[in-house]
């Protein structure tokens, strides 16, 4: 088991290192990640949402649905823990 895990790990690391060969340099200002969608958020944040904090405007306005999903994840985790860990009182009253 340990050897298969180790082989699998080496495989995953090798694929990642192979893939990182022509990734944009760290901090490159001309990288596609910084030049496609993000300039719109920076330029229009105050005009669209009246919020100078761009992270907030993206989180709560442009991609607000992801935030709803995130809230649902927290709710799911809470309900899951209640479902899993609720102790049963032996001889307690019947639930109606």
């Amino acid at each position: 088991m340990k050897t298969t895990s180790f082989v699998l790990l080496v495989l995953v690391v090798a694929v990642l290192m192979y893939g990182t060969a022509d990734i944009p340099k760290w901090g490159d200002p001309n990288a596609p990640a910084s030049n496609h969608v993000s300039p719109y958020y920076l330029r229009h944040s105050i005009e669209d949402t009246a919020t100078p904090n761009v992270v907030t405007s993206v989180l709560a306005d442009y991609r607000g649905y992801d935030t709803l999903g995130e809230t649902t994840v927290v709710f799911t985790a809470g309900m899951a823990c209640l479902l899993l860990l609720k102790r049963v009182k032996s001889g307690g009253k019947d639930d109606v």
Partner: protein
Amino acid sequence: MLDHGPVLAVGIPLMASFLCPLIGWWRKRACYAWAIISLFFCFLVSLHTLHSVIQGGTIRYRLGGWMPPFGIEYVVDHLNGMMLVVVSAISLLAVVYSGKSVEQELPDRRVYFFTVFLLQVTGFLGIVITGDLFNLYVFLEIASLAGYALIAVGEDGAPLATFRYIVMGTVGACFYLIGVGYIYVNTGSLNMEDVAGMLPNLYHSRVVVTAAAFLLAGLAVKMALFPVHTWLPDAYTKAPSASSMLIAPLMTKISLYVMIRILYSLFEPRFSVTVLPITEIMIWAGVVTILGGALMALAQVDFKRMLCYILIAEVGYVVGGVGLANDTAFKGAVLHILNDAVMTAGLFTIAGIVMFKTGSHRLSDFTGLFRKMPVTMAAFVVGALSVIGVPPTCGFFSKWYLVHGSIIAKHWTFLIVLLFSSLVSVILFFRVIEIGYGFGVSHGVHHGDGDERKIRFDEAPLGMLIPTIVVALALILIGLYNQTILSKIIDFTVPGL
């Protein structure tokens, strides 16, 4: 109001699950009725959405009114629409089914069970309908977390099985996230259509190739492809009957849907043939999965575990069918996603009914059941015929298209494996039917008991029986109307190859 169809399909179960604990605080027994009502409306909305897609083509819904790629977008086309209806229909049947079963297996946790059940359905619907890569991850995690909880409250070994599922499932979801990250770094966008427009110029880039590899590897864990299928048998066998009836048909099919989305909508079809030999790998993965699933199923003494291995083999059919990369095989694969969801739902309802009646789901518990529960066993026979692939049940038609597709692609190994697995299914199910009629029992004592109990009719409760009958009828109806389904829906899902 129904212009908001796509969002309502996700929003109704979500809001219902938020209100469920409050309703449970007021009156515990009301949660079951509340879940049924909300999933019924959700089913109606999905039907309406599919109808709109058939009439008018792809629906696009912008959440919050922001233009994509700056905001999140819901895209419903024919493949999506079909998956929406499948997921909501099976969820509705599962929740109707779960009433009696939850009462017996989890009597003190009803309120939270139905809450997490509704959240699970929300997660599934959210994955199916979204057109944004990161939004898919968020809903995938909602579905996964709810699934972990629903499975862990099962029988004795369930928490450990769930823990193993958590470890492997998290690896899968995180590989998916790494893939999305690599795509984001190279394109700067997260919207599927936007990325699909930018990617063809980047196929030479190693980053994009690695991204594809990680996306598919992550999904392979979630769909239980060989060799990362090890979490499935334990987890689904030890789960409560109501949970397995919901999760088993749907989780793997939804992961298969996401795989088809990534291979054919995100990356062009030519990517998986020329740039990376993905289709070759998929055919061989499908072959190994079908063989492994079929052979392991033969060795099982527990009915539910046998069904889990059959489920793994069915995943192999679809992966192989998509990998064959021709029109007929693809249509067969998509039809098989629909068929397999319904077949698995049907078979797991039978397992749940046997669990409800006898307290366990080993094959030996089927002794004499055919005489005591004729309706249930009739539904079982229909499900068995569908897995084997006998007309007019739907299983025959999807297998026929897959066989035809593999002949066109001249891939004889896949053809032989398809036929071999049908043969194995015959052996598996006839063994169960044999035990059910009491022929396979060797102890004389049992014969005496069987004759006495033969007189008493002990059919399953109505709440569990109705979904079983509905699923059995659906198997036959989908088979009879398969040409309609193909011409109206599935033909439009085939990408230009």
